[in-house]
């Protein structure tokens, strides 16, 4: 492969249409004769439905149908199986959680409309279909739901109590499963001989996804062919197709799923939402296409959410500050439906992060509550685990009177230990953990921080620095496929099963393939997002896209180059031995003959592929099912100032050293780091998901009362450096970049906050650390002293 394009910070091809307003998001699309849907959503967090009166709504102007959950069941259909238990990080053919201490792993099918009991505010109960969106919404107001409220529980720890309200039969104490992972006996032994054990509890706050494109779905049904069409943004069409076809009881081939441009994914849009199923069913019922677009208020109540874990951590150290063992309890709030156990799987696997930990164990609990379901949100368990590990090291350093960097140096996995097998069974093949940290210290001018601290103090500000090391895990859907076809016009067309939700695949994937084939960037076109031609593929999540697709592009590209030589030889009636492939052309050594890919494709269209005479396209496919080791890693340093008068915080500089392996397009990689950091800042300071603990009512229901970072929240100094330690796990040497920014962000920020407050309070600040929260902690410390 020649590297003309790979490694170049090339502006993105897709931008040409997006900046002209020519992007095509779901709500921009329409089908002839479409009707519009609107949902009546639960106003109680937990209640039995005694009755649904649709009389008035059915008579309302423009209304075509008013559909209930019972109608869906009467049609002989069933709920969606989200398959929440993911493929194991190592043994990918197994489930991450094969069994549960509770006896079995609970999984409940998810109906598109509630039948007799609502379990979270915002759950869809009725779908009104009308001539216009406005008429559908107006008619929703006329539907009367007779509720019999039940006590609600929104906190996962409380939900595990005996006597807590129970959500589902079959999940006693609201536990979907409980699992002990790691080596408990070894950890117990390590703790028994520890010099010191450090313990602390962390609450990783709930996050509302807030992708800017409100979810939208347009469904249609063709009675003649029995085929359904769903147009709806997602992180990959294949999963949507499988899950929804299963619920409708049809073969997947009878459902075409199209995901056009997608306005942000961030994890939850990997999963299938009830409304996507509902519009398809409704379309069949009413005999015309049905379109629904969420408003933002609905999104706050019904988009799958993220994080929401309680982690009780304990680390045992010897006299020198070396880690002997880790014993964590991780309690994940699953919400009202079993959508995803991914965060618990990822978080426990990676919990020892970049440190040499001889023994580790964790007790994991997945808990149902009367809140919107949670799914994987950017990093999905890894930022949570990193937060805990890095905070614990700072807490431990404090308690042991050690320098927090020195403590890390003593525990980091060294290059000489590679490949390193973690106690949770992950194998790190590469990663300069110590070098990344040293680089971050240098770039952030860590050693001069005390002087800056004094200077800030003279201005009445509390300055703090915090550092966090991180590593990620190579998970996500194991299966991926690409197909490449070269036409007689020399154009290269390829199909991938991932889906860009803003990551720029039309650029970075093309850079890889164009280099591999030695053709210009402009000669290559990527296609995705339509199950008509995407038959296999896992979608975009868990940093998997370039890792898998890049690898497969090289494989298929190699096949095509080999085929080009053979085909050219047969075209010229000579031996392939003396032929060479370079720059998208085949030449003989004597320089007599030469053919481009288009000519070769034309020959193949006549004569068939070498070795496959029945194949008349110049075509190659590559498929993979498994795990490709790749552990993106790095270090973040945050420096901030607290105004003790107000609790207000300003991040004054932020350093991010990221090893994404080989960066295909550094512009895109850095953009991913920026975006992840902004989401980390949001979680650390702003994003306050608030639900009333008694009633389960959601108070943060709009951008007015849920803080998403705006431009002013971003630090003035932001230094990103890519260190490039190529992995040997895949031919391209890539690791992944989508989660680099976010994984260490809250850890570095909270360590900086704790450092700033070191002389005043050792309280663990809540997340988000709003000015009010910081100010209150300062007040409490002052009161305690006086």
């Amino acid at each position, binding site marked *: 492969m020649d590297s003309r394009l790979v490694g170049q910070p090339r*502006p*993105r091809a*897709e*931008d*040409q249409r*997006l*900046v*002209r*307003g*020519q*992007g*095509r*998001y779901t*709500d*921009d699309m329409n089908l002839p004769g479409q009707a519009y849907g609107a949902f009546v959503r639960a106003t109680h967090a937990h209640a039995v439905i005694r009755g649904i009166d649709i009389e008035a709504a059915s008579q309302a102007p423009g209304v075509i149908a008013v559909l209930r959950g019972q109608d869906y069941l009467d049609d002989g259909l069933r709920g969606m199986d989200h398959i929440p238990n993911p493929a194991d990080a190592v043994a990918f053919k197994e489930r991450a959680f094969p069994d549960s201490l509770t006896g079995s792993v609970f999984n409940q099918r998810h109906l598109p409309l509630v039948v007799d009991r609502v379990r979270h505010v915002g759950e869809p109960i009725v779908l009104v279909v009308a001539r216009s969106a*406005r008429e559908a919404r107006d008619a929703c107001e006329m539907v009367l739901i007779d509720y019999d409220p039940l006590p609600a529980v929104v906190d996962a720890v409380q939900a595990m109590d005996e006597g807590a309200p129970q959500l589902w039969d079959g999940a006693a104490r609201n536990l979907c499963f409980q699992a002990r992972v790691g080596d408990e006996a070894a950890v117990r032994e390590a703790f028994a001989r520890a010099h010191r054990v450090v313990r602390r509890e962390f609450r990783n706050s709930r996050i509302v996804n*807030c*992708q*800017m*494109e*409100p979810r939208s779905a347009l469904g249609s049904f063709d009675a003649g062919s029995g085929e359904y069409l769903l147009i709806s943004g997602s992180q990959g069409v294949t999963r949507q197709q499988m899950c929804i076809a299963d619920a409708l009881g049809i073969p997947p081939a009878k459902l075409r799923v199209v995901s056009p*441009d*997608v*306005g*942000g*994914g*961030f994890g939850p849009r990997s999963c299938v939402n009830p409304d996507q199923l509902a519009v398809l069913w409704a379309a069949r019922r009413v005999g015309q296409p049905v379109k629904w677009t969420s*408003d*933002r*208020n609905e999104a706050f109540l019904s988009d799958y959410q993220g994080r929401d874990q309680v982690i009780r951590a304990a680390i045992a150290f010897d006299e020198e500050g070396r880690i002997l063992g880790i014993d964590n309890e991780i309690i994940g709030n699953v919400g009202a439906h079993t959508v995803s156990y991914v965060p618990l799987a990822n978080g426990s696997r990676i919990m020892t992060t970049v440190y040499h930990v001889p023994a580790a164990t964790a007790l994991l609990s997945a808990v149902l509550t009367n809140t919107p379901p949670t799914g994987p949100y950017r990093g999905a368990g890894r930022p949570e685990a990193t937060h805990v590990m890095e905070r614990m090291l700072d807490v431990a350093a404090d308690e042991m009177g050690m320098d927090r960097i020195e403590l890390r140096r003593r525990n980091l996995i060294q290059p000489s230990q590679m490949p390193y097998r973690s106690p949770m069974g992950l194998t790190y093949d590469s990663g300069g953990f110590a070098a990344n940290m040293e680089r971050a210290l240098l770039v952030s001018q860590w050693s001069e921080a005390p002087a800056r601290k004094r200077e800030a103090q003279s201005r009445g500000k509390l300055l703090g620095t915090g550092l966090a090391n991180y590593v990620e895990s190579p998970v996500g859907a194991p299966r991926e496929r690409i197909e490449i076809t070269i036409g007689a016009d020399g154009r290269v067309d390829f199909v991938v099963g991932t889906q860009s*939700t*803003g*990551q*720029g695949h039309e650029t970075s994937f093309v850079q890889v393939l164009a280099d591999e084939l030695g053709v210009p960037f402009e000669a290559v076109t990527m296609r995705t997002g339509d199950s008509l031609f995407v038959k296999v593929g896992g979608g975009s999540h868990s940093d998997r896209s370039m890792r898998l697709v890049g690898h497969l592009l090289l494989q298929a590209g190699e096949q095509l180059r080999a085929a080009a030589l053979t085909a050219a030889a047969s075209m010229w009636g000579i031996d392939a031995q003396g032929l060479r492939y370079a720059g998208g052309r085949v030449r003989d050594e004597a320089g007599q003959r030469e053919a481009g890919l288009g000519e070769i494709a034309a020959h193949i269209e006549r004569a068939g592929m070498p070795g496959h005479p029945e194949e008349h396209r110049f075509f190659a496919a590559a498929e993979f099912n498994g795990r490709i080791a790749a552990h993106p890693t790095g270090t973040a340093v945050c420096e901030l100032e607290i105004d003790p008068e107000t609790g207000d915080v300003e991040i004054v500089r932020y350093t991010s050293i990221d090893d994404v392996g080989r960066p295909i397009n550094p*512009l*895109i990689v*850095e*953009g991913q*780091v*920026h*975006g*992840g*950091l*902004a*989401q980390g800042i949001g979680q650390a300071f702003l994003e306050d998901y608030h639900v009333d603990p008694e009633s389960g009512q959601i108070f943060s229901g*709009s*951008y*007015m009362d849920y803080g*998403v*970072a*705006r*431009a*002013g929240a*971003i630090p*003035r100094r*932001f230094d990103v450096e890519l260190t490039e330690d190529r992995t040997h796990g895949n031919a391209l040497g890539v690791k992944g970049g989508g989660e680099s*920014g976010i994984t260490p962000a809250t850890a570095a920020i909270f360590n900086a906050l704790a450092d700033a407050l070191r002389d005043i309070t050792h309280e663990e600040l809540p997340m988000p650390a709003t000015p009010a929260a910081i100010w209150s902690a300062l007040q409490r410390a002052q009161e305690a002293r006086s």
Partner: protein
Amino acid sequence: MIRVELRVNGEAVSREVDDRTLLVELLRYELGLTGTHVGCDTSQCGACTVKLDGAAVKSCAVLAAQASGGEVLTVEGLSTPQQLGEVPAAFVACHGLQCGFCTPGMMMAIDYYLDTDGSLDDERIHQALEGNICRCTGYVNIIEAVKHAAHARIEAGKPVGRQHG
């Protein structure tokens, strides 16, 4: 129903619409100008920002009828098929977008900022973008794009910070 008459991207438009129709609905659903997006229902996100008589407005907070008689510029009017406008070109050059959903509104707010202020001071730019949310980019590159576009305007001999909308 009410008749609205306005100019959109230089073209005269006349439509009979429901009284409640918002300007953004007119643009998207009546005129097919789907580049203007809807990201919220509380006029917080700025995805719907357009220019109305030279001023940046959130088109989800303006009735179509209120805009009648006015001159509207949307993202589709920032570039020609042959050439990107300064702001869109700057967004491409600086990687100021990822999913692209916030981008049209963001660019219209910036276009207005360049008309009326155009200072390269970060604080001023932050203030100008206070009404626009982007969940993807982390804003760093958007701020770069503002500066890039300001330079491009000056190089093209176009005014920066002089017009008051």
